[in-house]
């Protein structure tokens, strides 16, 4: 509770200053360390910042997760303030005057919130499920990557500990007992909803990008491009051609054309 208040106060104080020149985004090593659920979150934030046209520097740290105030990556350093995780960062960017969804109607704004919540509840959990509970992916990809920066025996202990933590979280959300098919079904329903909202538009709310576009791109792009032993979730997403096209489009505009790093 105290930290919630502190966060609110920090966001308020932070708002008096515009975007600092030395904004830094901290995340684990991209090539060898980061797990794909974390990568999806990092990509969402990077896309958001690019959409706002904000300058920032990506800092790769092996201990980014332990450095983060909430224990989760990515986290953003704005002057003296540290903001971690996707939603607080979206809020912090907004309070500094970079509000992508400012022009939306109230109904659209609440719709936007609902879609972001949908992604949080479905795609994020599906990613965690695939990364940490699907045995093949866990042993072949997630554990070796998560432990890659540590020496023996920490490279065995720490992934094991993290797996236990994620599993507990998924148990409490009643995701742990699901089968891969059930998870794919959830993802299918979620994509269906997103696909129907997007239709043939360039972005989810017309011709201008919003926070939702950044978050959807971060997750879908990660899920369809990451090489994994199990492609079931990627196959589900690939069935929705307009979502795949959307990913290609955002990738082209905000990364390839601007020569930005992922």
């Amino acid at each position, binding site marked *: 509770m105290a930290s919630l208040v502190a966060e609110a106060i920090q966001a308020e104080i932070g708002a008096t200053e515009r975007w600092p020149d030395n904004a830094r985004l901290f995340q684990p090593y991209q090539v060898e360390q980061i797990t794909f659920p974390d990568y999806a979150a990092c990509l969402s934030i990077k896309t958001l910042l690019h959409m706002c046209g904000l300058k920032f520097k990506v800092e790769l740290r092996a201990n980014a997760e332990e450095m983060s*105030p909430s224990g989760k990556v990515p986290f953003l350093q704005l002057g003296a303030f540290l903001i971690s995780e996707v939603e607080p960062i979206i809020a912090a960017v907004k309070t500094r005057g970079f509000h992508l969804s400012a022009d939306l109607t109230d109904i659209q704004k609440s719709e936007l919130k609902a879609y972001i919540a949908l992604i949080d509840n479905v795609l994020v959990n599906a990613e965690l499920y695939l990364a940490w509970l699907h045995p093949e992916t866990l042993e072949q990809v997630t554990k070796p990557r998560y432990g890659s920066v*540590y020496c023996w025996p*920490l490279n065995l202990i*720490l992934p094991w500990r993290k797996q236990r933590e994620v599993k507990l979280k998924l148990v409490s959300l009643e995701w742990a007992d699901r089968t891969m098919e059930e998870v794919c079904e959830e993802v299918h329903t979620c994509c269906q909803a997103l696909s129907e909202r997007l239709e043939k538009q360039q972005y989810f709310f017309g011709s201008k990008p919003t926070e939702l576009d950044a978050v959807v791109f971060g997750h879908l792009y990660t899920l369809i491009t990451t090489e994994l032993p199990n492609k079931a979730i990627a196959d589900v997403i690939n069935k929705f051609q307009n979502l795949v096209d959307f990913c290609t489009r955002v990738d082209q505009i905000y990364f390839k054309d601007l020569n930005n790093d992922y």
Partner: protein
Amino acid sequence: MGTVHAKEPEKPLNVRRSANIKNLPVKVEKVVIDGLAKTKDDLVVQLIQPVFGAHNFEELIFTSLEVKSTLDRLGIFKRVQMTIDTSDESFGNDGYKILYEVEEKRTFSGSVNTLIGNNEGSLLFAFKFPNLFGRAERLSMEHTYGTNNTRGFGVELEKPVGGDPDTRLGGSVYQTQGEYPWSGYKETDRGVSLDLSFPTRLGAHGVKWAGEWRELKSLSRSTSFAVREQAGHSLKSSLKHTFVRDRRDDAILPTTGTFIKTSQEFAGLGGTAEFVKGDIELQANKSLFLDTVVQMSLAGGFMKSTDPQKEIKINDKFFLGGPLTLRGFNKHGVGPHSNGNALGADTFWLGALHLYTPLPFRPGKGGFGDLFKSHFFVNVGNCINYDYNRDVRDNARLLGENVRLAYGLGVVLRLGGVARLELNYVIPKWLQSCDSANPGLQFGIGLTFL
């Protein structure tokens, strides 16, 4: 009391019959040890051998007392009593037998203690098996629960080597958890260690290997970024040698004697922490007129990373300042800081000059009052990061610049022969802007001091 002497008591005290016990030939024919149950015979048989080497009565007394003391130090007997008697089955007049009556400690003992560390109190729950397999193997299990969120758990097994109670080999497994608010972090350590301690004519040595997994976390959102950057996991595998030579008459309020303590640590036998570290502490005491004692102490330390790519982490660094070391400053209040968090440094030196006197007007003299002393002191020191872009002479000059100095007076209380409590009025005279000073009254309690 009501005793009526029919005649003068025999032998008035002022008449002494002298016999030179050096010339009294002795042959120890028998040693009886009574009361052994769990303890294995071979351990005790080995320990009593010296008494058979006694040739005269003086030697007999010395060696048998030494054996008694050795048996005591094994830590497995509650009580050891010794009787020297003439032997019954003796063929001559010089046959003796020695009877040691021992009472073994219980197989298992449990205790709850309150501990006072450096400005922290904690509860210690301990279980001990003093004599696990009958050869003085001691197994102890401990759990500590402290006021500053310190938690600890440890299992230790140690045994005397070759029956010598002062040469001990031990191994332990432990987990400790502590908060370091002055530096803005908390740490959980899990480790295993092996150590060997042995006495020599010069002093006591200890050699210890420890393999430790250390987990560092920021204490709060306001933790300085310089500390936050060091959060995470590190593995330290280090070999440490310590040497202590204590020739003082008391560890807490000595009146005479010297004390030397050095430690050398090499970290980097595997693991991610790689450095060499050494520190030394010297102390000399001298009694002056009117029960006053002057005490001079000097301490210093240096560490260097052996891998130029890696910096030494905050939990291995030296810190300076506190109510029992560099008085007049808050705990770890001297040296590099960032946003109020002490970062520590890799070089330090510290000097202290104390003048101890009895309390004014000497209340409680010869009893309770002797636990107290008043003292006047001057503390000086500095703590900096060694600058490898400069040469040694430049660095020595830097250590000599911006020196911190504090002086004051106060009362010292000796607590149970192991700890001390100080209440001082201190004036930090020389300080730097980064320091966290504590002028005026300062209270300190702890086991280590300078």
